[in-house]
């Protein structure tokens, strides 16, 4: 065995676990979905090739437009919420405050991420109760009467956004907080000596230095919100009617309630392509504002 072959062997051996996981849990399901989208398959009886029937059904499906529109609304509400407010929270905790207080805030902001989604969603669901919920009780003290959090197709988005913010803001906060820690203090000191104000330091040091992390949070949040499932599933059940049903919830319904795996795969592919396009666009634009030069 030549040295080159040995190096290759070692390289492949190191790669093997990750490659195996990729093949089994990512490549294989993606290929299987693609194949299944041309079949009729109910998981109990063998699959049957039906050509393009699932794609024809996709374009004739009355509910798809609404669930895609709902998902877009979730993306437009939740992405800025997580990306901007996560940064503001991280900046607030990064300030020169007592170390103990910093630990306290970090724990408080990240704790909901660790809590069991189903349990806390149930609690939030009771809080959102129109008649007996604590939120409406407090609002009634200010003369605001009975907000239909779960019954109105408009309010339902706010209910999901409040829960999502409380539950998952800790993730964005933590990424930003780590990113802020990595910005050398000397840069701020030098800028301060040069007479730069707080806003100038933020615009010319913090934002450019944090841009890779901002980009990471933006991409992961956008992908996450496009695939949103837990929040509406646990809080609203997709209701009223289909008002808060996301594409992923709809795929779950087709696959695991109707057992139409072929059609569910077709819808999954459409969502996959949508996310791929959005992510590609983000990477394209990122060249204009993300700086990887950390010197």
């Amino acid at each position, binding site marked *: 065995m030549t040295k080159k*072959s040995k190096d*290759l*062997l070692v390289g*492949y051996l190191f790669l*093997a676990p990750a*490659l*195996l996981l990729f*093949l*089994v849990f990512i490549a*294989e399901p993606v290929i299987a979905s693609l194949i299944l989208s041309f079949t009729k398959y109910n*998981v*109990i*009886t063998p699959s049957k090739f039906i050509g393009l029937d699932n794609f024809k059904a996709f374009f004739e499906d009355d509910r798809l437009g609404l669930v895609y529109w709902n998902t877009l609304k979730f993306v437009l509400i939740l992405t800025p919420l997580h990306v901007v407010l996560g940064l503001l929270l991280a900046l607030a905790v990064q300030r020169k405050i007592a170390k103990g207080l910093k630990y306290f805030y970090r724990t408080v902001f990240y704790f909901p991420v660790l809590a069991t989604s189903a349990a806390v969603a*149930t609690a939030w*669901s*009771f809080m*959102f*109760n*129109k*008649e*007996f919920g604590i939120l409406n009780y407090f609002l009634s003290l200010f003369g605001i009467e009975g907000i*239909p959090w*779960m*019954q*109105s*197709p408009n309010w339902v988005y706010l209910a999901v956004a409040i829960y999502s913010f409380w539950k998952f803001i800790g993730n964005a906060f933590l990424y930003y907080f780590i990113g802020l820690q990595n910005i050398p203090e000397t840069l701020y000191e030098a800028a301060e000596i040069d007479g730069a104000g707080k806003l100038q330091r933020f615009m010319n040091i913090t934002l450019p230095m944090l841009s890779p992390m901002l980009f990471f949070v933006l991409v992961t949040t956008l992908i996450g919100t496009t695939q949103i499932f837990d929040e509406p599933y646990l*809080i*609203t*059940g*997709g*209701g*009223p*009617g*289909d*008002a808060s049903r996301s594409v992923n919830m709809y795929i779950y*319904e087709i696959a*695991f*309630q*109707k*057992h139409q795996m072929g059609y569910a795969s077709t819808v999954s592919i459409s969502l996959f392509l949508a996310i791929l396009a959005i992510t590609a666009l983000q990477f394209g634009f990122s060249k204009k504002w993300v700086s990887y030069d950390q010197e």
Partner: protein
Amino acid sequence: MRKILMLCLILVWCFTLAACSSSNSSNNSDPASGTNDEKAELTLVWSKGDASDAQLKDILTEFNKLYPNIKVNRIEVIGSSWGDYFNKIQTMIAGGNPPDVIRVAIEGIQMFAKQDLLLPLDEYMAADPDALDNYDDIHKKLQSPFVIDGKTYGFVWDWNNVVMHFNTDKLKEAGLSLPPKDWTKDDFLTYAQKLTTEKDGKKTYGFAIPTYYFGASAWLFNNDASVLDDAMTTSKLDDPNAIELMQFFQDLIYKYKVAPVPNPKDDATQMLMNGQIAMMSAGKWPFSTYAKSKFTSVDVQFLPTFKTNKVIFGSGAFPVLNSTKYPDAAYKLSAFLGGVYSQKTTLSDASIPTRISVMKEVLPKTPASNWQVYSDSADIAKAVESPVQYADVESIFNRYMGLILANQSDAATAMKKAKEEIDQVLKN
């Protein structure tokens, strides 16, 4: 070299996939071959809500006195509705890990049987009738949903109807007594209005609308309507009687203001106990919660007569999956779980027993003065409509009912759309 390494990786991958799939064991399906000495290990799907660990241990101890070599392991499958529960079991089967014996309500029996997933038990009944512990003791009408096309797929264990539950403290406060058996729609509305109160900022609503298929179907039956026709081949939700009932439900919230707007996670039993509502319609199952909470201010009555008065029923049994490696042992377990000992152990304060002897013994102990509404309706009750496509039908019905109750659609429009979707599902 690269090709060899890639080949190795592919082989490892194939091996992994093969290891994940289940092995198809040979099926010993000869009913005559079963003996009490047969060694078997069975998987039973039964929730702790139906039978606690202590109750199941008690039942299995008794079972093992008869069949010492049959070991039973419980798997709990939690579903947000019957449809959701059945879907999860189907996913287990599709995943290559089918259990042996499953708790199935009437809502799912057609779906499992028509997909050829269940073992017909008639041959085993003929070969070992003693395991049935007096088959004639089972109420025939309640057993009938588990006999499909002349084949027996289980032995009915529990059943429920839907009656009205009253918080008797609230009745007293409003100066009302338990309504008579033949109370009407007008009487019901009067009760709901008188029971809707607000004292010291604490609101009590007269009634909570049942937002689930079984509960709503009971009210549809009483208005001479139903979700499906008798043959279960088309939906009847566009029938004027069905629309009238759904519009009445909407009016109870937004016009008469005697019912709270339903929320997805509402627990009507809890709301009745803490006085947030004064009436709700349910089966006998809330009595288990009443007992745990030591709540005794409750009584029951038939639902009010609207256009007619029909009582709905749903029942459950323990069918055996035809993929079981131990069909004889599984039959014995299925029969025992539907038997007298099992019913006496598990159905003292939850669902209604289906054995006539146990019903007579257990029902009088129900802590409600009008407990006879449970036993009186067994002979006249009509089964909840449960086609093969039950999970789909339930999901569509709940979605459109949700729109009506959220005041996002009038009943006629929503029910017409629901009918169209259900008909489409029933066609496939």
